[in-house]
């Protein structure tokens, strides 16, 4: 059993407050089941970083855990205490925090893939681009989910077109913040150092590396060397001539 550390205390504190707020809301107000369930689920989500650490799945950095807790807590607080209805800019703040948290998750995941999946290489210059594209896609999925829930259940998650567009602008701005931060981070850091600090579970490493269990443990290595460029004269020869073409194919396969 691992010792309780500061990150665990942050998780437990956020979860406890949310549970307490949910109970008080259930007892003293006329909150709907949707709002109460939001409180309960968010409280459970607050515990996930702690559970991950104690189960040996991964150890997230404290700053990131605080960001996750703030994002989840702010959302649940807004739903339970009707802040989304009362404060015009509240939705803007929660969307921005949540998108930054999701963006960092994507960034960490891409770094892990870069390290463990030998068939895939993003390179430090292109990870930020992928982060931006994936985060934008997630933000679209979220808005579409809101639309579907509104249509199917009749509740009002999307207040108005203006609200939707403001969400999208916040998400885009937050995606930009993560993208720029990722670019600057990778200028002075390597992926290996950070991924090593996450202490990922071997099964998770194997899953990312897409190797069967029988094979050896994935090796922590950054596939940073440049691919032979098909436009380089040497490679162009390979494409043109049958003998060299085979060589090029072998080169490519050896990267796998």
């Amino acid at each position, binding site marked *: 059993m691992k010792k309780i550390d500061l990150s665990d205390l942050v998780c437990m504190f956020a979860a406890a407050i949310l549970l307490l707020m949910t109970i008080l809301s259930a007892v003293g107000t006329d909150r709907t089941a949707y709002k109460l369930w939001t409180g309960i689920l968010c409280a459970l989500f607050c515990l996930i970083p702690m559970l991950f650490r104690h189960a040996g799945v991964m150890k997230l950095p404290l700053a990131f855990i605080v960001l996750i807790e703030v994002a989840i807590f702010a959302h649940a607080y807004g739903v339970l205490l009707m802040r989304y209805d009362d404060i015009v800019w509240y939705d803007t703040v929660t969307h921005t925090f949540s998108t930054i948290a999701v963006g960092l998750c994507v960034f960490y995941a891409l770094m892990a893939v870069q390290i463990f999946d030998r068939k895939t290489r993003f390179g430090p*210059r292109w990870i930020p681009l992928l982060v931006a594209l994936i985060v934008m896609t997630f933000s679209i*999925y979220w808005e579409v989910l809101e639309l579907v829930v509104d249509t199917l259940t009749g509740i*009002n998650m999307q*207040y*108005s077109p203006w609200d*939707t567009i403001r969400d*999208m602008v916040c998400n885009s701005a937050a995606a930009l913040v993560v993208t720029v931060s990722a670019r600057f981070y990778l200028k002075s850091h390597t992926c290996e150092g950070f991924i090593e600090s996450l202490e990922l579970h071997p099964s998770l490493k194997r899953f990312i590396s897409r190797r069967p269990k029988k094979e050896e443990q994935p090796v922590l290595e950054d596939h940073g060397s440049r691919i032979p460029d098909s436009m380089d004269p040497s490679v162009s020869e390979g494409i043109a001539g049958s003998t060299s073409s085979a060589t090029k194919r072998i080169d490519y396969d050896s*990267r796998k």
Partner: protein
Amino acid sequence: MNRYSLVILVLAIAMASMSVWRGDWDSLIVPVIGIAVVLAPMIVTGDPNKGYDKHLMAIAVIPLVAFIVLFVANLFLDFEYYYQVSIAIQAFASMAFGMMIAVFLNARTEISLPRRWVVVFALTFACSISVLYTFSTIYWMASTGYPLYNGDFSNTLENDVVNMMLMLPMAVTTFATIVYAVVFNEYLKRVDSLELSRLCPGGEI
């Protein structure tokens, strides 16, 4: 210039011309991207025969032809769901061009994306393009006097109807690209992985 590149260029120019003719500026985005993507290997290498794998180029032709057919048919038949189908077709084209961009990056940068990542890249690219449609739609709604703000709505139903108008491009693209991603992933299994990592010389048709 290889034949597939030429066909895509001609179709993309035709699609762009139709969009300009109808004043449908959103539909201009995809053909412009298509022209840029097809010309990029030629410009970068200085070789007018450079293109992409024929399987990739072939699937990019399908949505362009489909859009032109739909556009012409709509002139005479005035389809009720023209806009929705048009968005789905443009999402198809965006994904096809997204895959080409991924191959271009594979060939010209340190990136190395296997098949599944090429598809993921294309999916995220198509979804990101749909955000541009949404921003354009809100501008159109604002300029034509639609209710936009929370206080403009008297009931949830009215709100849902107007929200649906705004969300249509993103919603259609979201569901369409998930289907396309599954199909493209299967389709690209036919393509040699080497072909997804290099630009192809012309004449490989």
